[in-house]
């Protein structure tokens, strides 16, 4: 799904030191924090889930052509590792060439979907997965357009909590 509005870059994006990993530990912590926020917001805005490190290095996310700065690979890795610790990144392989960016964690997704279900009175009824992500009633919801595998993961979490039950591979029933 293409972004409907242009992404609002944070102020740091135009601040050259943002693209140099800082030596001062405190400063660096704040810098990495800012990067994490930016990466998540960027992916959320563009509804991107996958990130390949090699591609990311050249993407506008990590390089600002206007001020001719780009975050070096070590920097990118540090940011992703930091996100990984927070549960927002899951590496696809051990060599860490690509990863999934959960701009919301599975837990958060699960909560969002459940609260939607209870809000719209969909509890104790069966919904199709297609209905959840592509249906006309969910266009304004954040999980609209969500990948199926992610949706299933979130619903599985709800299932383990006893709040929902997956029916086959297409449907789900929410419990009160």
């Amino acid at each position, binding site marked *: 799904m293409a972004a409907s509005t242009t992404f609002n870059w944070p102020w740091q994006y135009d601040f*050259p*030191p943002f693209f*140099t990993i800082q030596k*001062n530990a*405190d*400063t660096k912590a704040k*810098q990495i924090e800012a990067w994490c926020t930016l990466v998540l917001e960027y992916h959320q805005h563009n509804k991107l889930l996958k990130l390949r490190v090699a591609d990311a290095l050249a993407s506008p996310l990590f390089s600002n052509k206007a001020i001719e700065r780009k975050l070096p690979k070590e920097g990118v890795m540090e940011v992703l590792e930091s996100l990984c610790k927070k549960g927002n990144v899951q590496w696809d392989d051990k060599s860490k060439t690509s990863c999934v960016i959960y701009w919301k964690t599975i837990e958060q997704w699960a909560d969002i979907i459940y609260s939607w279900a209870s809000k719209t009175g969909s509890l104790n009824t069966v919904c199709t997965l297609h209905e959840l992500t592509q249906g006309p009633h969910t266009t304004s919801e954040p999980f609209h357009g969500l990948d199926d595998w992610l949706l299933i993961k979130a619903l599985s979490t709800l299932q383990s909590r006893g709040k929902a039950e997956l029916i086959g591979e297409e449907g789900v029933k929410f419990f009160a």
Partner: protein
Amino acid sequence: MDRFSWSTGGPLYGEKEILKQSSVRIYDGDEKTSYDDGSLILTTHQIIWRDSSDFQICISVPLCLVVFCEKQSGGIGRSAKLSVHLQAAQANRTPGPVSRSRYDYVRFSFKNGGESEFHTKLQSAMQTKEWEKTSSQATSSPVSKSSAKTGPIRASGIVGIERKIEENRRVTDKNISVAFQDLTKLMEKAKEMVSLSSNIANKIKDKKGDITDDETVKFKSYLLSLGIPNPVTKETHGSGTHYHMQLAHEIASLLKQPLEENAGIMLLSDAYCRINRARGMELLSPEDLLNACRMLDNLKLHMKLREFETGVLVLQLDSHSDEKVISQTTELVDDSKSLSAQELANLVSVSVLLAKERLLLAERAGKLCRDDSDEGLRFYPNLFAQPMR
């Protein structure tokens, strides 16, 4: 020819050799003599001829007998000659090779040339009349106590060449030792100079009224740059800890003012240059300086050696405060949005190395952040630390 006397060739009192020319033959007037190959020596007192094959054959004529001399240029198969006209022989003359002669002049034939120089030197020697000045102490006869001077070194064959080389070496040796003597003398003089300068300084203090304050200050600064009056040396204070302690005191007193002028901090390399410039001759090794500087802190001399994390060594006054430097640096960076070490160095007129240390210091304090790009390392105000913008 009858004016000549037998001679030992040894110097007379006050006599100096002026010129020596080899391969000279003597003519008694127009007649050839058996003295056909020898070296002719001109001294301040006499002309000496010494046989080149048997140096015991040595005859001389005192310069006081010479009336005048003239040159006869040579030609094909004929060597250039010098005619020397002589006065009548002295009655008391010591015996010579010829008792009577028809001629009042002798001629020297220069087979190897050199007659013009001999002519000039002979004439100037006759004008100087050096022999008259010492005639009261010596007669024209050679002094018998002459030193065991060996005959002239003859350059013939390999032995001759070897001798010549040996002689050259001796002369070089002598020159070198003379040169070093000069150096020692210079060092002695330097000490005198230093004491002189301190004397002048004291006098200036006394006569302060006569000279304006400005001039006094100026002159004092000249004197100061002349050096330390009494440098601490290994000779005066031995080596080891005591030496370094004394040295530390000297460093502290000498560098206090420059340090104050340089915002309380100075690169050790700069300090090294300043110390050695002030010491003049008694140069200090870098190791001794370092050891002495390490003691500064313990001796409570208001300054200490400091090593930055980058390994840069500096001397720093105790009054120097990092906080002040950090806040000043941060302010400067704030004003110009971003600074490189070079730009800061220009702004506060310190060396680039020190400017970089200042920036790194401020960075460690979390006041600045860095931008390391192809254009070099620049420092920005640490906007990350300011929560919201």
